[in-house]
Structures are given as structure tokens and as C-alpha cells.
């Protein structure tokens, strides 16, 4: 895990901030198709957050790809897919059946990341326009459109960077709250859309469909955050500082060994 210059473990702070937003009886969906830091963000941090929430007595299940509610007390040693898909769980769904759960609104929270995110929560993971006008391909949409369209709410997990937090995304893989004059209501999107952005320096919520700085990590100023964004976000009137993990929370975090990246 890495630091953000404040002396705190960034992933621990991200997991802590996220864990406070997880509710009893919910199920959160984690995709398995990412690599590198994005993989750590969308798999490791939600697992740590769910583990923290369980420690507070909150009954929050994860769905990991086709696996429903794998036992978080018994994680596999690595993300090597044979181990992940063998993870102790009550069910491994056929993937078309798994998709239907999204479509009928059975996913409470979707955990996603993005190569580009704009102030209205539109997300791009498909392709980036280069300076010469050509497109640079990324992997593809996977189920990101479904997370944004159908989940009760979507949580974006992303390190702050001017290249990521942009005024306008080059390509809309997942619809946020607004693009031009078009809103979720106009489109008939049934899910809640992006509700929370958890970064390495701060968290954001959405007010009136627009991203808003909500809480700063210990020792971080609004200027530190804005310096690493391509747009200036609104600020919540009750902008707070996240309490670092208590001794109990730190111990709880340390008690979970995340599966390692296999490659």
C-alpha cells in the first residue's frame, strides 16, 4: 500500500471512508476484469470496506463477478482466477443470469473506476482521444454501463489526477447524472448513478448531479485536491476531515489478508 504524503495508509483511509457508506442488507458488485492499480481500487478497497463494516455488525454481502456472497473470512491467496472462482461461496451464477441481477435492480452498490471521470459522474473506460485526434483503446466497457445504469448507487474509486478528473470525458462508457441538457430522468435510467467518489486524498458526493468535495483525509487541504483535478469541484458547506482509523479499525483492517495479484 502507498502513502499520500500525510503519513497515513491511503488504501486504509479509502476503505474506511467507503465502509461508512455501506448499509445493512445490501449487496455490492465487484468486477474482476481490471489490472494493476485499478484492480486494487475496485477489488481490494471494497473488500477491506466490507470487512470493516462486518466488524461493526453490518450485514453487507459482496458479489465478485459470478460469485455470490463469497466468505470474506476465507479469501483465496491470490486473484489467480482458478482460486477466485473456487472461493467458498453459496453460488457461482451463469454469467447471463448474473447480468439479469443488475437489470432488475438486485445490485445495491456498484464499485467502479475510470480512466476519465467528469464533474457529472460520466465515466470513460473505453478509449481516450490522443493529441493527434486518434483514439487510444483501453480494454472495453465490461459491465461499467450496467453499474452506472442499474445499481442502487455507484461508487467510483480512483486516484486523483488531472488526466482522470476531466472537464468532459472523451467517450461516455457509463452515464453519470447529466451530459449537456440530458439527465438520468430523461433517459429513464432506473439506478441511482454515481453517489460517492473515493480518492487517495478526499471523498466527493454529488449534489444536484454535480461532484462536490465532501471530506478531506487528515492533513490534506482543498488546494491539494484541486491541484490534481482538471476541473474545480464544488465544496460541501459542511466539508469535513475524515477521522483516521481508530485502533480497533486499524486492527480490523490488518486482520484481512487480501488476495495477491498473481502476475
Amino acid at each position, binding site marked *: 500500500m502507498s502513502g499520500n504524503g500525510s503519513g497515513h495508509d491511503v488504501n486504509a483511509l479509502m476503505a474506511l471512508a467507503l465502509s461508512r457508506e455501506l448499509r445493512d442488507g445490501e449487496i455490492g458488485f465487484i468486477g*474482476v*476484469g*481490471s*489490472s*494493476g492499480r485499478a*484492480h486494487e481500487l475496485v477489488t481490494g478497497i471494497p473488500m477491506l470496506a466490507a470487512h470493516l463494516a462486518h466488524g461493526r455488525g453490518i450485514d453487507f454481502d459482496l458479489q465478485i*463477478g*459470478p460469485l455470490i456472497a463469497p466468505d470474506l473470512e476465507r479469501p483465496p491467496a491470490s*486473484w*489467480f*482466477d*482458478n482460486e477466485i*472462482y*473456487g472461493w467458498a461461496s453459496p453460488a*457461482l451464477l*451463469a*454469467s*447471463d443470469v*448474473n*447480468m*439479469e441481477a*443488475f*437489470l432488475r435492480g438486485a445490485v445495491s452498490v456498484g464499485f467502479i473506476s475510470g480512466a476519465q471521470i467528469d464533474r457529472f459522474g460520466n465515466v470513460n473506460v*473505453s478509449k481516450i482521444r490522443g493529441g493527434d485526434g*486518434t*483514439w*487510444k*483503446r*483501453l*480494454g*472495453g*466497457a*465490461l*459491465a*461499467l*454501463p*450496467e453499474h452506472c*445504469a*442499474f445499481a442502487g448507487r455507484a461508487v467510483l474509486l480512483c486516484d486523483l489526477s488531472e488526466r482522470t478528473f476531466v472537464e468532459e470525458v472523451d*467517450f*461516455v*462508457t*457509463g*452515464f453519470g447524472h447529466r*451530459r449537456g441538457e*440530458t439527465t*438520468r430522468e430523461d*433517459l*429513464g*435510467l*432506473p439506478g441511482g448513478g454515481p453517489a460517492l467518489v473515493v480518492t487517495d486524498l478526499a471523498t466527493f458526493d454529488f449534489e444536484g448531479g454535480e461532484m462536490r468535495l465532501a471530506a478531506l483525509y487528515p492533513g490534506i487541504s482543498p488546494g491539494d485536491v484541486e491541484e490534481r483535478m482538471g476541473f474545480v469541484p464544488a465544496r460541501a458547506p459542511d466539508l469535513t476531515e475524515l477521522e483516521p482509523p481508530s485502533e480497533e479499525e486499524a486492527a480490523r483492517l490488518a486482520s484481512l489478508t487480501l488476495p495477491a*495479484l*498473481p*502476475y
Partner: protein
Amino acid sequence: MRPKLIEIDEAVGLVRSGSSVALGGATMRRKPMALVRALAASDAADLDLWTWIGSTDVDLLIGAGKVRSVNSAYVGFGAFGLAQTSRRAFADGSVEFRDWSESSLVASFKAGASGLPVALTRALAGTSLADDLGAERVDLPFGGEGLHAVPAARPDFALIHAQSADELGNVRRRRPNRSDDIDHVIAASARALIVSVEEIEETEAIFENRDETLIPGHYVSAVVHAPGGALPTGCDGFYDPDLAQLAAYAEASRTPEGISAFVADLRGARA
């Protein structure tokens, strides 16, 4: 029922230039790689590929110059990173990539499997994927306002890799199930289905394990015995993804020279 068991080159020889070909498996599991390698070394070209989640299958066929377009929700190597040969081809326009989301592509395959020309989806509303796919917003009765109509996938061929089958083409999905794919849907969407398997077993074993039959032989055009036929991707209960082979392929795919040499070696080995 007539036996369906034939040699791999004979099976792949059914695929003509300009065909649409769906590929089963997903990312690092049960990709029909033996069939893909045979197709890469064949005379077929200008293929329109359909796959739910593409990886080495799509990338190798692009590297071999066989592909005109790709319909998929993703092409990449999962934790191994991006599929570089595919990225180059999509960037320079030599291969058209048609971006789908996971559920809209499932809907498209299911529509094809149901004999319908279109699928309906709510997943693409407001996205650039809808624009690029030419998805049409339609208003329908029974509360169906503002859905997108997208074309049904009805590929000429589907290629899938399974654990076992008998010589009549009854395909068995054996336990343990450690996959994240829609092979049963892709198989049903195609006009002709070619299946490679790890093991050929007696028909009596199929009868005795009928609950594990994924596809009855009636719906199968050809079965090929191809042990290790998913490598370098994994096959549930038989082998894991081969990390060394995957790393070697990802390295070859990184440069045009690397993938050319890989394809030349492949053709040489099959000649």
C-alpha cells in the same frame, strides 16, 4: 444421430472468408484456442468476430490478419494488461471494434438464439456505445418507453471449448464449474456450432450424467478432440491458465514484429 467427431482442420475448414464467427469462453478461461490457432493458419479471412469478453483469441486472429470487425464488451488480457495487437488494429482502423456492454451483448446473443432480429436494452442509454453501435431508441407498449434496439447476434459459426463430449456431439459441462462465461447462449445463437473438447467419452457416460449436458448433439455441427485446447487460457477441472505461455504471448503481441514472428511460428508448426 450421426457421429460429429472430425479432425480439427476439417472442422475449421467449414469457416469461409467473410463469415461471422462467435468465440466462447471469457478472458483467461476456456477460450477455444486450438480452434483459433487452426483458424489463424487457415485460408479464411475478413471474419467478423463476436465474443462476450475477448482475450488471446481475438488478439491472435487479428495478429494473423483474419479479422474485419470485432463485437465485444472487452478485449484484453485481464491482469496481464492490454491486448496490444488488437489496440494497434483498432487505432489504425484496419479492424473495426464495436463496443458493447456485458448485458447488452448477452441480450443480443439471446435474441439471436431466439430467432429475433433485434434485442432490447436499457443499459446503453446516454452512452457513446449506443451512438457507435447505431442503437435506435424505440417506444414500445407495456412500459417499454425509451429502450434501445440493438441488432441480434446470429453468427454463422460459434467455436467453443468444453470439457468433454461423446462422438455424437453431446457436450458435457463437468464439475467443478469455475468459469464466468455465456457459452450456452453463444452456442445457441450460431447457425453452426463447432466444439473442441478435452476428452471424448462414451455415450453411456453422457446418459449417466445427463444433468451435466450443456448442449445436446442435435445442435452441434462438429466435435473436435483437442486436449489442452483452451491453452494458454484455463479449462475448469483440467488445467489452470498457463502463466508462462500467457506472458510469452503478451510479450509477442506488444510489437508488430513480435506478433508476426508468433504467427509465422504457428503456421510453420502446423504446416
